[in-house]
């Protein structure tokens, strides 16, 4: 047998494995919704609380048809994306400042620990009073929940860059900002991407909680409204939409990862 044939066989076995993986992923999805529907119809679970896929789907179709859901989705999505970007960006900037001044980072160390361990959503009421019950305070919630942990993780990555790369730059008389640009930042891209992935989830939490507290629009509002009027079809539909959009955001971050990290 020649090499080309063997390679062809190898590729075929890879494709085969991938098909099986897809098959089982699909099977789990079908089984989940099928079981849910069945359990709801046969009253194994209370359909008033747990609803059923058909009821949720019907509600979703109705809401799409009259266009009302799109407003809520666009509000929440906008707030989440902005909070997510702000949180990561601010975290990176703060990490850069800490790297720039080792003295400052020593001074601030205990405060970062305190801020990180504090439940940020508890700041919600203060934010709302201070910034008004609008979009800006919700976006701030989305950002504030991820900014400190991003700072800590990214700063740790900045510090763990091999000192010999800096030595090389130093022999070329590089300034500290050149060192940051040429070595510190690019070698931390993988870490920054992985904090982005974590922050996708975190900023959804911040924004939804923010909407719980204050909003009259958005998916978080729909959840809390559905809960108040005991319409759990609405709650579950909102959850489903959140799951879909959170997944899309995560996929976009992965796409960015492939674009940005050429050297892996």
């Amino acid at each position, binding site marked *: 047998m020649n090499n080309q044939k063997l390679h062809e066989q190898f590729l075929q076995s890879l494709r085969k494995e991938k098909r099986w993986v897809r098959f089982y992923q699909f099977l789990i999805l079908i089984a989940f919704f099928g079981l849910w529907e069945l359990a709801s119809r046969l009253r194994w679970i209370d359909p008033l609380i747990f609803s059923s896929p058909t009821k949720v789907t019907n509600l979703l179709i109705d809401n799409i048809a009259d266009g009302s859901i799109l407003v809520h989705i666009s509000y929440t999505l906008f707030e989440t994306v902005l909070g997510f970007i702000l949180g990561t960006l601010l975290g990176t900037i703060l990490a850069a400042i800490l790297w720039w001044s080792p003295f400052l980072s020593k001074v601030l160390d205990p405060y970062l620990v305190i801020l990180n361990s504090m439940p940020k959503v508890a700041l919600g009421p203060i934010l709302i009073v201070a910034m008004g019950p609008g979009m800006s305070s919700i976006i701030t919630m989305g950002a504030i929940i991820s900014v400190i942990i991003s700072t800590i993780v990214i700063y740790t990555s900045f510090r763990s860059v*091999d000192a010999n790369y800096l030595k090389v730059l130093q022999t*070329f008389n590089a300034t500290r900002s050149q060192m940051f640009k040429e070595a510190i930042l690019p070698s931390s891209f993988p870490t920054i991407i992985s904090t982005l992935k974590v922050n996708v989830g975190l900023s959804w939490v911040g924004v939804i909680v923010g909407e719980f507290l204050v909003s009259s629009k958005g998916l978080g509002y729909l959840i809390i409204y559905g809960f108040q009027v005991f319409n759990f079809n609405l709650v579950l539909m909102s959850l489903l939409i959140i799951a879909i959009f959170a997944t899309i955001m995560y996929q976009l971050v992965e796409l960015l990862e492939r674009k940005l990290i050429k050297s892996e």
Partner: protein
Amino acid sequence: MSFLSVGNVHHTYFSKEATTQALQDINLAINKGEFVSFIGPSGCGKTTLLSIIAGLFEPTSGSVKIEEQEVYGNTNLSIGYMLQQDYLFPWKTIEENITLGLKLLKNEKQSYAKVASNLLSDVGLPPVEKKYPRELSGGMRQRVALARTLAVDPKILLLDEPFSALDYQSKLKLEDLVWSKLKEYEKTAVLVTHDLGEAIAMSDRIFLFSARPGRIHQIFDVPEELRAITPFEARSHSSYSSLFQVIWKELESLE
């Protein structure tokens, strides 16, 4: 007037537990175009001295001058520094790696692509400008690191065991390459190494250091007949082994 002069250099490292005197009373002078090696037992401060000559940090006391200019904090001097590993930036292409120093030091509008391709052929590599470091072998990467160092036309080359991480064959080839490039461009160079054979094969003078605190123990002149030939040829020359024996005995007595 000597090209590089090190005068009364002392250096002490401080930590919470102790102070360690790394270098004591170092005086040496190196002429232009000369190739010298620092050897000695571990802890003799030879790498510390090299870093001080590179201007990476200031000695506790004393001075290091190249052509009468103080080295530390001097942004006009260009110094080439090669480390044990290549430390090519993995996210930069070979071309970007080679021209990194040019980009940082000068803003000349010369064609970086041209510089990179010339240097690559100069260090005996095929045109790999657009590749990334991970696509090259260890020996090739160290050649790229040499090209990066030569790109900025440094006044002096400081070599911190640049061949120690390579396999034996690549090491011998690279020794010859570095040696001939330095002769071709008439560069002054200081090599720190653990390998006595390498020091004899490559250099004109050898400084033997003793440890704790680091001091110059003895200076050996490499005979003319070894200096004139390539490191590879030198290794099989008759005076090579006699000098090896002499320095080896000294080295033994230090440990």
